[in-house]
């Protein structure tokens, strides 16, 4: 029975992940074989010309995306960590309004946010800047980060914090020396997701950054598709490279999300 389920599970996963397989397959196919009929189901004769082209042309875009991702993580943590602490431990009542606001933020379409930012940035001269994109991308992660930190920090036993206060630590000191180290797993989880969302962002990049020289890789791929429809191996190779953070997250955050959930339940 169990073996039968495993077999079905493997087949279902295979069907689900077929597009991912196909992306890798195409990325390794020779340009000459790209329009073969029937298509090559397996790259028997793989080529790395797609990857060479991708790295040759998209390396600056990948670096830009990396920088934007890291900047977004920093900004998100800066805003969300103290807020999570305040909501979880300092202001337990009267947080309903903030909860409601954070849920409403989920309802705003990205295109509406993009128009708002565009209207502001055009005045401030922040269009086509990396800093502007970092600020815009952080709006994807901040609501999630605040809710996650709040849930996590609410689970930190009061005994530990009371002990710190008896030792004479103030609120800031307790936050820095007790709460932050204990929140490590949730910080890692938030960082990974904030990075991934900024890395994957297309709408803000295509609106706030569209005439810039320093474009992120998502826009790089989009322009690739527009300009260059013959070299699909290079496009798919860039897509594979752009998927690396997702693969990384899948392996790492699996563990940290689980750790975050179990650590939230305090045993006494």
């Amino acid at each position, binding site marked *: 029975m*169990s073996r039968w*389920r*495993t077999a*079905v*599970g*493997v087949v279902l*996963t295979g069907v*689900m*992940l077929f597009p*991912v397989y*196909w992306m890798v397959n*195409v990325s390794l196919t020779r340009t000459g074989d790209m329009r073969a*009929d*029937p*298509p090559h189901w397996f790259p028997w004769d793989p080529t790395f010309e797609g990857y060479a082209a991708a790295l040759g042309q998209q390396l600056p875009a990948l670096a830009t995306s990396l920088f934007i991702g890291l900047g977004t993580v920093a900004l998100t943590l*800066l*805003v969300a960590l103290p*807020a999570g602490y*305040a*909501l979880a431990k*300092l*202001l*337990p009542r009267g947080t309903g309004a903030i909860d409601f*606001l954070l849920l*409403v*933020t*989920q*309802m*705003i*379409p*990205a*295109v*509406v946010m*993009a128009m708002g930012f*565009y*209207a*502001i940035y055009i005045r401030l001269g922040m269009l086509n800047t990396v800093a502007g994109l970092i600020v815009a991308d952080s*709006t994807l992660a901040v609501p999630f980060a605040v809710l996650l930190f709040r*849930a996590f920090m*609410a*689970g930190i036993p*009061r*005994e530990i914090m*009371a002990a710190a206060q008896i030792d004479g630590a103030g*609120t*800031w000191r307790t*936050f820095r020396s007790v709460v932050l180290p204990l929140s490590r797993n949730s910080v890692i989880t938030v960082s990974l997701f904030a990075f*991934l969302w900024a890395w*994957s962002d*297309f*709408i803000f990049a295509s609106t706030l950054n*569209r005439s810039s020289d320093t474009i992120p890789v*998502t826009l790089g791929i*989009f322009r690739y598709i527009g300009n260059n429809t013959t070299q699909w191996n290079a496009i*798919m190779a860039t897509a594979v490279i752009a*998927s690396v953070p*997702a693969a990384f997250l*899948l392996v790492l955050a699996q563990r940290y999300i689980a750790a975050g959930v179990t650590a939230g*339940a*305090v045993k006494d």
Partner: protein
Amino acid sequence: MALIRTDAVATGGRPTAKVSPAPGRRPSGRWTALAFLAPLVVYLLVFYAYPLYRNIELSVHDYTPRAFVQGDPEFTGLDNYRAVLSDDAFLAALRNTALFTLVSIAFQYALGLALAVFFQRGFRLSAVLRAMFLVPWLLPLIVSASTWSWMLNSDNGIVNAFLRAFGIGQINWLTSPGTALLSVTVANIWLGIPFNLVILYAGLQNIPASLYEAAGLDGANAWQRFWRITFPLLRPVSAITLLLGLIYTLKVVDIIWIMTRGGPADASATLAIWSYREAFGTGQPDFSPAAAVGNLLILIAFAAGLLHVRMQRKEGIS
């Protein structure tokens, strides 16, 4: 010590996460709390409230690109909304939005639930396979969308090659008006399955195993167990999953824009695509109608949220 004791009592039996800590014993406590909260409040005001306000402002003025830079647009009240609502393209976009959203969330939910039930009973490799199902959710949308574009390519796509093997002629998935919306919907369903699977699977974990055991003793088969136990007990989780699915699907732009740009001839243009195209999709940005369409989208999402809250409340009473 007294503080620790009260907390220990308060914690007894309940998860600590729900316990309200004792706030502001000292008068300065409240100010400290506000100081910690200040970055978030400033952030929400500057980066959410202000863009939203700007958006409303855009929608009640006539912003030409020139007025946009100079900042002297003409106030037109609700004219933009009137123009949008009476536009022939509006009904078509509304219909496309409804089809795209409802078909997407129906299939995402049904398939996600079927998979969650399938994974409910662990088996060899089940944890690994379940994790693999997250991949479509984690990939950048541009990656998924361009992969689907190439798979659905009329001449060289794998989908048409597969169909050819069964004697089915070429289908122009992305370039014919009859199939463009269907194609982006299929891609979007694929993208949404992992999210539904994760939430519904977590919901299933909270259904006590003893219920299934009791039903098993009563001779209930798998089908009856699903409809009598799993489905009714999962209702609150299902409701929030569908609501979030609706909110997220209403605002989808990237996947459609990358695959079809709303075309051919508006065949796959939803309200969100319409808004995006007016504002950023052409050489001539037209922000005012775009903002009006965007605000209508927020209203629809908000209405769905209110409906959800009302239904929750009703259920709580009965």
